[in-house]
């Protein structure tokens, strides 16, 4: 249902994240839609409140207060008795309230297969790709005794189970045996005792009857296409989609107060506007950008509990989304440390810090997730952790972004036996046009230069790539707003949300620090010219504003290339932005930091200084 500007003049949109509830006000002023005010409050899922709507009320109250100040009008009011007044009547009320939500925590799954390295691995890939934490993989050949497997299944209490096993027409016995173990364990879901545990069966289609007989009474059995219909063929799409559906239907709804929130979200005629899961709303926006601009886009939304990566690649605009449920900057921050290792975080830190202190700092952020870094040193550390969270989430995405979503992916038989790689990723950084960042640590970095640095260091864009950030984190809001007004969503997106940071030029290949890497000549719009032979292992930042273009002549040395066609010389237009154009000669494939600590710190400081990422006092 779409409404025009006569019916929609003032809209409140919220995103209930696992840490913070963010509210924005969108108004139709002087003939256009603009995002005018923003407020936020902690998400209230903690006892004694246990009700997500309290956070919505608090964030909206902040909006009201700021609106009164902005318009110098004490009569402005959006809510009464803790409920939105819809529709708007002068100073009172709003025409619509819409919301997205990602509160509810991660998705915890258990997967089963017949052979651990074959169907088991496929099931694991599907679950991970759908954003789950895989608690355990149980298979016929995993060396545990059957009663041990039953105990384990019973003990785990996952949110759902994915069962794979057997190619179509292959073993029935082993698949059914696994189902018997699940049935014997009679597993219960982690949250909400009132519903049966969802179990997805994506195995041998000839076993469906026997599986139904074994399991249908005890669990909520959902049958989908075989994940491994043939040994050399993997088909993750249907199982992954089913996992997403069940996650939205069951797990997310466990967020306390969600039922109330569902009644609140409505348009000017009181028609309900469904709450959209945050990743779905951001995914809508990413796909719209790619199609409108006819470009390849990679986007990331890093939250407190999860990190979502989105990509639109190839001329067919193939969209992929992964949810890394265990990577985030507050609830999951400790998992980032566990997954990346301390050394990988420390490699981005330009000073010495006691290891224990850092570990305890991370754990303290985990148990008090709403705190923010007040000290500069803590900000640098959090941004170092963010780079690793982004890197890991991107690695997961690359592994799972398969070419033909929802279709079967061919692997030849030798690959199927080695199982060393997950097939070809369609993520190609050499052809990527735009990298977009969103989420607290990227959208609210004190300096936009820090956002640019985090995106470059984590994603290591190759060749020429434009970089942008969601200015104040409103992509989810706009994603759901487009359901009732594409016009409002598009206008606000272009004018207030998407903020171009600039471009990154990164020659691909290896080199030696100090040796010639890139000769760059940039003719800037103000008539000035930047010209330098930049050695390997350097970064240069050339100011070039939003909407401006620099005419660039780029020439590489020493085997470095600039694009997919292995060009060594290019004359191109480089787009500017809030930060400018970064020329990054640190190498790609591989990208390697100096291994020796003193040298690494020296270079980190140099790069950070060049990017104007931090105040000088921390870089001396």
């Amino acid at each position, binding site marked *: 249902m779409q409404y025009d500007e006569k019916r929609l003049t003032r809209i409140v949109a919220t995103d209930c994240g*696992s840490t913070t509830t963010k509210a924005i006000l969108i108004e139709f002023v002087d003939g256009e839609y603009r995002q005018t005010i923003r407020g936020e*409050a*902690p998400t209230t*899922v*903690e*006892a*004694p*409140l246990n009700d997500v709507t*309290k956070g919505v009320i*608090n964030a909206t109250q902040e909006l009201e*207060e700021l609106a009164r100040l902005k318009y110098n009008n004490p009569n402005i009011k959006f809510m009464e008795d803790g409920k939105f007044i819809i529709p708007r009547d002068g100073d009172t009320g709003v025409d619509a309230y819409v919301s997205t939500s990602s509160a509810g*925590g*991660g998705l915890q799954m258990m997967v089963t297969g017949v052979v651990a390295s074959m169907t088991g691995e496929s099931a694991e890939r599907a679950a991970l790709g759908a954003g789950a934490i895989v608690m355990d993989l149980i298979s016929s050949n995993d060396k545990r005794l*059957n*009663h041990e497997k*039953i*105990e384990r299944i019973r003990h785990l209490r996952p949110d759902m189970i994915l069962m794979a096993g057997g190619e179509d027409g292959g073993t*029935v*016995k082993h698949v*059914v*045996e696994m189902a*018997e173990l699940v*049935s*014997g*364990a*009679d597993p219960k879901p982690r949250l909400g005792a009132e519903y049966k545990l969802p179990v997805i069966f994506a195995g041998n289609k000839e076993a469906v009857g026997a599986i139904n007989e*074994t399991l249908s009474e005890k669990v909520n059995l959902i049958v989908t296409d075989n994940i491994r219909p043939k040994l050399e063929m993997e088909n993750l799409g249907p199982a992954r989609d089913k996992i997403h559906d069940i996650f939205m239907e069951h797990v997310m709804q*466990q*967020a*306390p107060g969600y039922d109330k929130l569902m009644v609140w979200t409505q348009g000017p005629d009181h028609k309900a506007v469904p709450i959209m899961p945050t990743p779905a709303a951001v995914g809508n926006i990413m796909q719209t950008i790619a199609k409108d601009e006819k470009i390849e886009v990679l986007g990331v939304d890093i939250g407190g509990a999860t990190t979502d990566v989105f990509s639109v690649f190839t001329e067919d605009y193939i969209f992929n989304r992964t949810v890394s449920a*265990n990577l985030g900057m507050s*609830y*999951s921050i*400790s*998992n980032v*440390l*566990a997954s990346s290792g301390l050394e990988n975080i420390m490699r981005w830190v330009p000073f010495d810090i006691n290891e*224990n202190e850092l*570990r*305890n*700092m*991370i*754990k*303290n*952020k*985990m*148990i*008090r*997730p*709403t*705190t*923010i*870094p*007040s*000290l*500069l040193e*803590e*900000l640098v550390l959090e941004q170092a952790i963010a780079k690793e969270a982004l890197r890991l989430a991107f690695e997961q995405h690359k592994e799972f972004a398969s070419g033909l979503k929802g279709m079967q992916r061919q692997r030849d038989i030798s690959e199927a036996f080695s199982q060393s790689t997950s097939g070809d990723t369609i993520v190609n950084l050499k052809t990527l046009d735009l990298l977009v960042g969103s989420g607290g640590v990227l959208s609210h970095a*004190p300096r936009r230069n820090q956002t640019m640095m985090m995106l470059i260091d984590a994603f290591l864009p190759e060749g020429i790539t434009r970089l942008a950030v969601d200015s104040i984190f409103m992509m989810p809001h706009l994603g759901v707003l487009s359901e009732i007004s594409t016009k409002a969503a598009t206008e606000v997106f272009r004018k207030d949300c998407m903020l171009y940071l600039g471009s990154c030029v990164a020659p691909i290949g290896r080199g030696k620090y100090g040796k010639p890497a890139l000769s760059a000549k940039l003719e800037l719009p103000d008539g000035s010219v930047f010209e330098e032979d930049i050695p390997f292992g350097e970064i240069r930042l050339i100011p070039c504003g939003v909407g401006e273009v620099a005419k660039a002549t780029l020439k590489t040395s020493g085997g470095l290339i600039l694009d997919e066609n292995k060009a060594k010389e290019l004359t191109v237009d480089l787009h500017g932005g809030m930060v400018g154009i970064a020329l990054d000669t640190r190498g790609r494939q591989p990208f390697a930091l100096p291994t020796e600590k003193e040298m690494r710190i020296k270079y980190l400081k140099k790069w950070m200084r060049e990017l104007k990422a931090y*105040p000088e006092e921390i870089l001396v």
Partner: protein
Amino acid sequence: MGQAYSAGLTVTDNIILRKERILPLKGTVLVEKGQKVAADDVVAETLLPGKVVPFNLANKLGVTPAQLEKFIQIKAGDQITKQTVLAESAGLFGTGLFKTVVHSPVDGEVESVSAVTGQVLLREPRVPIQVKAFVDGIITDIIPEEGVVIENKSAYIQGIFGIGDETTGEIMMLASTPGDEIDAGKINESCRGKIIVAGSFVPFHVIEIAKNHGVAAIITGGIDDQDIKKLLGYDIGVAITGHEEVGLTIVCTEGFGKIDMARKTFELLKRFNGKKASIHGHTQIRAGVIRPEIIIPLEFQEDELGAAKAGLSYLRIGTSVRVIRQPHFGSILKVTALPEELTKVESETLVRTLEAEFEDGTRVILPRANVEVIES
């Protein structure tokens, strides 16, 4: 803005406490409304399904799964003992000679028989599960077949993080100041079954000594991340804890690292030295957050009960707050101003701040997000 919502942990010498005690599965409630109960009293019980024993009967009998039907002597739902014959083969040429007889390996019930795999699932007898009151109090509500609501008046402390399950014991102060690091020499047999109180920190070797002396629980200001790892044998990725079996319960009141216990918490524990308390380390920092609790039941009259509805905690001028991040992590301050405008802090982040003062009158500006209200 004169006030702002802020999350906080409760530390109070007097609260009307309401605890739900619920069975994991439906069962029987053993107490009545109005009945007085002690922490160790069982209030509800149920029978959990017994352990499942998979048993490949076809293999034992030396027949195919499809043939099993001819020889099997049991069906799903049958009660069995170790004497029960599950299946018996016909023997040589059907004469009964050299026949194979398979007895049940367990007492219990037949869960299922599979013609596909030849496997039978046998279930051992049900296991009784009991829910104890956990706190001394009065039963104020019965939830039929599920559990009870117990109310009492208590001194009450919420911890920030814990490990280990519910337990009870007498409070025993081992620290003399909130900044004390507990001395291993102070832990001896007199600590057996007690809830010992450390000050700012408890190192791994002291936890080990406490375990050896049968200490029920430790309350500490801070703990080291690596010590928890040593204790559990794994690193905590997401804070969902409370069911670890490490030999005792640990409740941290402030956080990770060496952090003085908040004076108010320390003084409260000191005041109740020698008194019986209930404690658990259950922590869940996700939707439906759970924090560890220390509950010290007080004398009360029945008409005092009827738990007040929990409200939001607000930051106001004069509110006591605990700083929960550097700088001044762990300090207790009094709010002196709540400026409306956004302020740039050292990290250059623009945030809502508050001004607060130390006991000696020194004032600091801090992000509002980095304090929590000490509720009382």
